[in-house]
């Protein structure tokens, strides 16, 4: 193998990370969860320079994909297969580092159990990925390594995006002064606010927005104080999605890569936030490739596409070159980053996946 000090270091770091996670997994008991997360944070803090050097010199490319949006990458359900079909380089944006920062402020209540469970599952998935995919997916806390702008600015942008959903409200402070109930919120809401916002994965857009809000509120009952005003709950329901979307935009703009996002909500908010940026070529490309990736994720039927083992999947994938075939077909159909139809993309991806599944099976 050709010598490459940086790549070799990254591979070593992946193995070290796996060993660390293996050591921490059995020890992640309730009361030691945060010490374990702290150690994970310290681990990545140590390697920040190496990782950033890798990201800027080897990962910055439109053919590089990052699985992000604060979702887990479930190894056992083969979620990583559609992720690997596209592009040349792949990173799973490890959320454990973020959990560490959140953990410092999480108290022992019902939220903690859920949070702790999430950590455990993520650790298990990470171990499985590193063990089984031969560094075809790197696990790096790429969101934690933002160089672009201080965090204060990031939160300001998120808040401004939230405020832009309203008329006659100038700031978050103003929002809380003027809004208490959901009725107040809707009074100040912009036109089509009911079409613009999505509360959760289970949000039924055919219902009136007030019903949708109460349904979403029920979903997070375990995490909130029951006396909390609607205005606070509404903010919490929406702004998290906005931050997640902003995070993906900033991350991918910085490293010039494509986000691979499972959550339709995050996709929705990314498209919303980038609606007025389509004059920027890179943003167009990001939106286009992100949609393709998302549809691929949704249409990929792991039951239909069976694999005997991971290595054989990768071999077939390389030989078949699904990525090139897909983009060639899209181009032949006249679909480009500045002119694309969601329906047509959906159809083409479905067709290409069917072709691929025949080859694979």
């Amino acid at each position, binding site marked *: 193998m050709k010598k490459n000090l940086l790549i070799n270091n990254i591979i070593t770091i992946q193995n070290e990370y796996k060993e*660390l996670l293996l*050591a*921490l997994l059995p*020890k992640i008991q309730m009361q*030691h969860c*945060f*010490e*374990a997360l*702290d*150690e994970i*944070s*310290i681990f990545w*803090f*140590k*390697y920040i*320079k190496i990782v950033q050097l890798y990201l800027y010199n080897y990962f910055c490319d439109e053919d590089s994909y990052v699985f992000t949006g604060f979702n887990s990458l479930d190894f056992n359900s083969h979620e990583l297969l559609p992720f690997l079909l596209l592009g040349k380089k792949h990173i799973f944006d490890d959320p454990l580092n973020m959990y560490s920062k959140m*953990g*410092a402020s999480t108290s022992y209540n019902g939220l903690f159990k859920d949070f702790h469970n999430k950590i455990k599952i993520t650790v298990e998935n990470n171990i499985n990925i590193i063990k089984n995919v031969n560094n075809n997916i790197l696990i790096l806390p790429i969101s934690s390594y933002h160089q672009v702008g201080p965090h204060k600015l990031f939160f300001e942008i998120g808040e401004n995006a939230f405020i832009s959903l309203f008329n006659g409200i100038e700031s978050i402070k103003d929002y809380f002064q003027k809004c208490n109930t959901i009725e107040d919120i809707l009074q100040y809401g912009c036109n089509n606010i009911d079409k613009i916002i999505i509360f959760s994965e289970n949000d039924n857009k055919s219902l009136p927005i007030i019903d949708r809000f109460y349904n979403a509120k029920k979903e997070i009952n375990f995490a909130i104080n029951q006396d909390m005003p609607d205005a606070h709950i509404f903010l919490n329901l929406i702004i998290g999605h906005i931050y997640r979307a902003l995070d993906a935009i900033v991350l991918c703009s910085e490293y010039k890569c494509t986000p691979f996002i499972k959550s339709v909500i995050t996709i929705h908010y990314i498209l919303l936030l980038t609606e007025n940026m389509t004059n920027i070529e890179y943003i167009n490309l990001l939106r286009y490739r992100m949609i393709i990736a998302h549809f691929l994720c949704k249409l990929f039927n792991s039951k239909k596409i069976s694999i005997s083992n991971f290595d054989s999947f990768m071999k077939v994938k390389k030989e078949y070159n699904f990525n090139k075939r897909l983009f060639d077909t899209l181009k032949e159909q006249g679909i480009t980053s500045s002119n694309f139809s969601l329906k047509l993309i959906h159809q083409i991806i479905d067709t290409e996946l069917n072709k691929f599944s025949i080859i694979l099976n």
Partner: protein
Amino acid sequence: MIMHSKLSDHKFKKGEFITPWNNIPNIQCLDDEACWVYGRMPEYLWIGMILDKLGRDNGIKKIMDIFLKLHQIAPSLTTVRISQILSLDKEIQRIFFQYITELGVQEALVPLTILFTYSNYPVFTEFFYNPTHTIDNRLEILLNAMQKIMDHQSNESTDIRYLVLIFYLIVGKLKLLREELDLILMYPSTSHESEIMRKIRPSIRATEMVILYNEKLCSEFLQNFWRNISMMSECDAFPITFPKETRPLLNYMKNLYEIFSYLNNLFISCSPLDEKMNVLLGIATYSYKRLKEIYDHNLFNSISGRGGIRALIENYIMMKYLVKNEADHDNIWQDYQLYGIGCYKLVLSRYREKDFPIASHCNIKYIEALVNEFTNEEYINMDTKYFDKQNIRTKAENVDEKDLYGLYYDYDSSFEHGLWGAIRESSFIKCLNPAHKYHCIPDIEDKIRLKSVLPDCIMVMNKIILFLNELYGIPEQNINEVINFEKEFTDKQYNNYSE
């Protein structure tokens, strides 16, 4: 003030100057793991952090209590190295850390949780992990503490070494004479500025060194410590930057041009076929062109500037050598030229053996023409030794320019040959981060500015001019211009030139 041995104190053996210290049989430097910075400071950092947090007086008292407790619960432990404490049975560690917590010293050791993490040191993190302390915060405290104790003779590190010694006394591993013990017991209550401390401190440090030979060194712990701490912090670059050379040189360069124009016209009109004048003027012109390049491109503060001044010095020495030895060496002027042309021919021959690399800056066709310019190359030998079988140092001694060689030329040779001293000076920036052991980092951004070679360039060029003046005579007004310039330069501007 640190005293250094003179050159005359060294023994010269087989081309190497051996220091007086190295001449003592079996003497050698301490291994890294035994030295304070690399091998002991990391182990005693925890003591330093308690002293840093609580202050000297209160800190020493608390640590004494901690040591007594440690000896009580782990009587077989004969060291306070943290690697050994963290290797104790977990229950003993729990009792120990619980005691530290009860003493109110817990906060001092929180920063160490970025090094002693949960997977390897669960008991330590159990007592000292504090979620309100960010990684940056812990690292900052740690680095500040390290900075104070990196110097093995600082007040803080001497306090630590005193405490280490005390533990050895507690466990009975060290016996001292009554007088020595009295001095040592005075230590905690005596200010570092006291006169008596000039006696006590060295005694403590020397005695603490004796302990080393009985201690178990933990290489893995030290390697991990330095690896982890160095990766977590940024370099703190400290480039050495001398002032940029801005002194006006235009008039001097104009005067030089006048002189060389005169010499050129003198040569053409009076002695166009004089080999001696041809060679001397050639060497001088080459020196003038080197200086002009430094001036035109403002290279006085650069590495190239040092190459330039070195060339001037070598040329001057060669000129004097050739003149001095012309009586004893027939055809010295022709032989000198043939020697140089022979060197060119050697390169030409090598190129002929291989395919000529087209992009090379060496124009082989032109070189070939130069080699064959006056004599067919078949009559030109290629001498691979020094000209006249003497190196430049010997030639310099021959012409009474030993200082010019020893004090200037030899220093600049390091730059020309890319020896490490020159590389360190010109291409590495010091990092002031103690976690990086004050290493050096490459100067990619070109922040280093070397001290200007301008005064020395003028000095050597004027020597060349005066030498030619002795041989051929140069109009007085021209000579006076350059000499006066040097004089004024040295008197007025040089004194105002601050570093």
